[in-house]
């Protein structure tokens, strides 16, 4: 026998069954070999996957769970929740519910959970914090019948809205955070309605975040295209030199670049000084260029510009110059040839750059926080505010969930159109 394979004949028919030297069918042996190779490949990826799973994917799942979980009221106001379960939300509940509430509030005050409960209810219906804590303080000294004393103390207890809020927050899984994140709430009848106009901020904020990201993306393409074209057309030695001007900002700390923009653009900053010195404006007319939306867009454009230049450059490098020459020799004017022949060929790069910049821009936090002032804040800043200042973690998680949904959709589109293996840096 020559080589590791042999042909064996079985029965009268000639069935060709390839086997290995030790007699195993070749197909099976091959499948085994491939399986062990596959396992080896998976084993190499596994450590990182486990790491990313536990310290990234699971934490994000935990955050998403935070956006819907609501154990506080159900855990600490057991009696009230039980009675409100069968309440029809038509009129203020009976004495029985007030007695249960008195018990729950007194107990919650003893366990010191009443503050959290008051805060939670206050997020849903502003003004309820003092009602809950005050009633909790008084209720210990009250005896039955409770209803009149409750209503006499705070008229809110005679309103349907207060009780409806309690009932709405009773379930341990809730959608109220997501409703709040789009300026909606459930009214007394259980329908989704817009909240009071003075409290509506989140939809506007999402729109503003998207709008600012679009502006940054457009600015990046408009500024990135000419220099990518220049880099792609110059001889390698010169383009490598100029490339440093693109790559250095890319490698420089985000905080350094943000600080630089403050130094350049603030009213007593370099640019205003320069304009006063040249005489374009006088000292009293200094322009507020930063700590507003405009400052955020300017700084973010400079910070994200390399992300559009690099993919554009690599696409432009692959377009043969002969295309343009062919178009010109066929009679097209130089500009027409550029517009009709060259630009369409760059569209994959434009698309890749735009998507990447937009994805990165809508989640921006540091730059808007430092140079955004009042009207330059984005959705990430609101998430940070609710995480750190107002401590409304449920709402922060819901806002984060919506932002994540947007980013994941765009990421999916990016992957379909460009392919993540084509992502490149430097």
């Amino acid at each position, binding site marked *: 026998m020559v080589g590791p394979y042999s042909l064996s004949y079985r029965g009268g028919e000639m069935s060709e069954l390839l086997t290995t030297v030790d007699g195993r069918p070749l197909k099976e042996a091959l499948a085994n070999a*491939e399986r062990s*190779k596959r396992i080896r*490949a998976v084993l*190499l*990826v596994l*450590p*990182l*996957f486990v*790491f*990313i799973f536990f*310290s*990234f994917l*699971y*934490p*994000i799942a*935990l955050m998403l769970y*935070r956006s819907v979980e609501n154990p506080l009221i159900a855990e600490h106001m057991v009696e009230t929740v039980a009675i409100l379960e069968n309440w029809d939300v038509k009129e203020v509940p009976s004495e029985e519910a007030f007695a249960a509430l008195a018990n729950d509030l007194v107990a919650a005050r003893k366990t010191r959970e009443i503050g959290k409960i008051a805060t939670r209810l206050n997020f849903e219906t502003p003004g309820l914090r003092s009602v809950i804590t005050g009633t909790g303080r008084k209720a210990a000294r009250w005896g039955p019948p409770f209803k009149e004393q409750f209503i006499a103390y705070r008229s809110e207890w005679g309103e349907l809205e207060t009780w409806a809020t309690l009932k709405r927050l009773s379930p341990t899984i809730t959608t109220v955070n997501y409703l709040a994140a789009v300026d909606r709430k459930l009214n007394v009848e259980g329908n989704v309605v817009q909240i009071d106009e003075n409290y509506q901020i989140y939809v506007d904020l999402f729109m503003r975040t998207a709008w600012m990201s679009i502006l940054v993306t457009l600015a990046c393409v408009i*500024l990135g295209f*000419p*220099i990518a074209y*220049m880099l792609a*057309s110059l001889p390698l030695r010169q383009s490598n030199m*100029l490339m*440093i*001007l693109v790559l*250095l900002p890319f*490698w*420089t*700390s*985000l*905080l350094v670049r943000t*600080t*630089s923009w403050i*130094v*350049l653009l*603030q009213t007593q*900053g*370099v640019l205003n*000084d320069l304009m006063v010195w040249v005489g374009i404006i006088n000292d009293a007319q200094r322009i507020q260029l930063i700590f507003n939306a405009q400052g955020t867009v300017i700084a973010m454009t*400079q910070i994200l*510009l*390399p992300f559009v230049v690099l993919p554009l450059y690599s696409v432009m490098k692959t377009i043969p110059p002969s295309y343009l020459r062919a178009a010109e020799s066929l009679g097209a004017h130089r500009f027409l040839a550029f517009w009709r022949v060259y630009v369409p060929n760059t569209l994959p790069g434009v698309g890749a750059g735009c998507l990447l910049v937009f994805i990165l821009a*809508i*989640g921006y936090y*540091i730059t808007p*926080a*430092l140079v955004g002032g009042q009207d330059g804040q984005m959705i990430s800043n609101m*998430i940070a505010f609710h*995480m750190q200042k107002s401590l409304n973690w449920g709402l922060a998680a819901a806002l*984060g969930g919506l932002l*994540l949904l947007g*980013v994941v959709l765009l*990421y999916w589109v990016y*992957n379909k159109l460009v392919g*993540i*293996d084509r*992502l*490149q*840096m*430097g």
Partner: protein
Amino acid sequence: MSQISLPDHAGPVETVWHWTYIAICSLIFLFLIAPILVIIPLSFNAEPYFTFTSGMMSLDPEAFSMRWYEDFMNKEIWQRSIANSFFIAFFATILATVLGTLASLGLSRSEMPNKGLFMGLLISPMIVPVIITAAGIFFFYATMNDYIPLTGSYLGVIIAHAVLGTPFVVITVTATLSGFDHSLTRAGAMLGADPTTVFFKIIMPLILPGVISGALFAFVTSFDEVVVVLFVASVEQQTIPRQMWAGIRESISPTILSVATILICISICLLATVELLRRRSERLRGMSPG
């Protein structure tokens, strides 16, 4: 082949357009680089201002001083921050580089099942907004604190920074491996080397430029990271970016400009290293067949 140069037969319109184009490009390059360069001379300002004084404009030596650098060297908080930044970035880089390189070796094998899905998941820390990652990790550490204290610990910050750094390692190393000639490993194996020897003697030297580039990206990611630090670190783990953040938001002092200048010098060194590595690996790849 240069398309930028003006042909001899160019008419007046084309000549004007040509120079306009050059001017536009110069302005864009200025927009990219000026914010970085402007900070360097300002960090030598003798006055506590963030703008050029008349003395600086007339190049009066009196108007320049090293006082903000001295301030940086003498303040204990800056010294601790810089030590913390290097410490955290160093371990986060090692963790990210080892895990990322191993995973890249698996991901670039043709036998790897569901390659796209795994790649997508492993790259996602780069795409997901940091604020979301930070919030998630904050909640996660809070639930873990009963077993292992991660909030306000070096380990917690290092793990979170390694998460943010791994996508860069995976991207650069898989890119290097895409040009890797797999018959080299088979040749090594055929000549009697066991897989470990093949890895260290054949694969590693060839993909090393990619690994180092990835590691540098991971290092910079950690070194420049502030959001996770804001969410899960305590005062003890104060880093340079965290201290700059506080400086910009609370009491802005020109010391920040001296720190920024030092950081710019570090980035120039890192960029130079990565560029040299990239050119070396392009040269090597140019020599190998296919």
